[in-house]
């Protein structure tokens, strides 16, 4: 398979196995997909299907057992440049000994930015997530939703070409979650970055994505690549009330249920 110029992310026959005492278990069986530049793709799958393993392979935190991952045309062997990750455990991915602004600034120094540029970027990123006043607060002084917004600000201040999100809103309440979803949509539209959004929430995947990649149970393969043909601008009320939204949601739901069935549950 050739890497198209317009593909920001290319995952080809990715396999990742774990060795236990008794045998070798394939967590990720054979995953192939690509995400075009500027696209927002969501990944859903039944619980325990190796979503996080997949993301860790793409982020260069875990070496694949087979197959390749390419970001921006370059094969991944360690953490790729131009890639930012927002983790699920926001409380544990912010440095509690650094203030919010320092957390956002931390990855910027190795990028060769001057002090003034760094400060400008931090202020801009915090403003983009609506936390302009919280620069000097420590993470533990902020609510869960605000902490995750700091983590998002850190990711966008880094100016990645590819943004990976690993169930980022799984641990916040419903209202905060809806706000954060719209925040991500807004940032994605404004910044033109490529986003791969991993979630276990089918509604969230359909609401956010231009595409939804449905994974099977372990050993994981891509069961179906569902194009989300909803209007480009999404709205928590009207989009979720759209009959087309309901149809897509049911389709993905059925796929995931059949994935469970295959596993014999």
């Amino acid at each position: 398979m050739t890497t198209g110029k317009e593909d920001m992310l290319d995952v080809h026959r990715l396999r990742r196995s774990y060795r236990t005492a008794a045998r070798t278990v394939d967590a990720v069986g054979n995953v192939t997909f690509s995400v075009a530049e500027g696209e927002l793709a969501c990944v859903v799958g039944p619980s325990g299907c190796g979503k996080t393993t997949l993301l860790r392979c793409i982020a260069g935190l875990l070496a694949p057992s087979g197959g390749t991952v390419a970001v921006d045309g370059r094969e991944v062997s360690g953490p790729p440049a131009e890639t930012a990750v927002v983790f699920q455990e926001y409380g544990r991915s912010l440095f509690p000994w650094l203030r919010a602004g320092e957390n956002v600034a931390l990855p910027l120094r190795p990028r060769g930015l001057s002090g003034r540029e760094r400060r400008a970027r931090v202020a801009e990123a915090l403003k983009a997530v609506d936390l302009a006043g919280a620069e000097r607060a420590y993470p533990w002084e902020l609510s869960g939703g605000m902490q995750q917004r700091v983590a998002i600000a850190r990711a966008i201040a880094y100016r990645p070409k590819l943004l990976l999100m690993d169930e980022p809103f799984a641990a916040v309440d419903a209202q905060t979650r809806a706000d954060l979803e719209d925040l991500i949509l807004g940032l994605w539209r404004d910044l033109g970055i490529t986003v791969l959004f991993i979630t276990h929430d089918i509604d969230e995947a359909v609401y956010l994505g231009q595409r939804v990649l449905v994974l099977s149970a372990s050993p994981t393969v891509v069961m179906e690549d569902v194009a989300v043909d909803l209007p480009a601008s999404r709205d928590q009320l009207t989009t979720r009330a759209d009959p087309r939204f309901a149809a897509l949601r049911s389709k993905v739901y059925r796929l995931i249920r059949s994935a469970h069935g295959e596993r014999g549950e």
Partner: protein
Amino acid sequence: MRTLWRVFALVALPAVLLAVWWFASADSKDFFLPPLSRILNSFDTVWTAQRWRADVLPSVLRLLAGYVAAAILGIAAGTVIGSSRKVRATTEPVLEFLRALPPPVLVPVIMLFAGIGTGMKIAVIISGCVWPVLLNTVEGVRAVDGVLTDTCTVYRVTGARRLFRLTLPAASPQIVTGLRQALSLGIILMVISEMFAASSGLGFTIVQFQRSFAIPGMWSGIILLGLLGVAMSVLFALFERWALAWYLGMRRTGGRE
């Protein structure tokens, strides 16, 4: 009102104990247990400016030198050992052995190598203080949160920046615990090192008084040692409050442990 209560809580018990000592010993005829009033009176004559310069100050300076050296050594070695599972596995048995040796036992041995001067006394303090710092640093460095490590890896925070922004701050609550344990050990070792072949120092002076039957002087030296310990621990508490401000704040807000 709260401050008042705290001041009261702080001084109440020492005041009671002093009062008990004062009255119980008031008309003591025992040569070895003189009245507290006599001990306190001897402070002026025993602890003169000359004695502070010649005995107290050198002791404190040796303590500080040994303690700081042990802290740097312990944190540096602990970081290296804690960062690598292989190094940890190979060094652990040796560390456990060395840690189990009571430092006073080493004094004659250290004298063989370091003589009987200042170097020996500092070496004794280092040999005892380094272990709690080192072992706590190993534990702290080993327990750095995996998500934070991943975050640094993803954002390509490496080298010295990773050390000072991730590893050391993450381990700092444990490191401080080790430093606190080392401080009380340091005072003990300071005194012990001065009981062997010394010609000056607090420990030396106290032993000297004891041997020459200057009993009130001996007692005053012991009290002075205690006060020195209190002063050190107050200073350490201030340092801890500064260095671990984030940690204490996080715990107060019920944040993650």
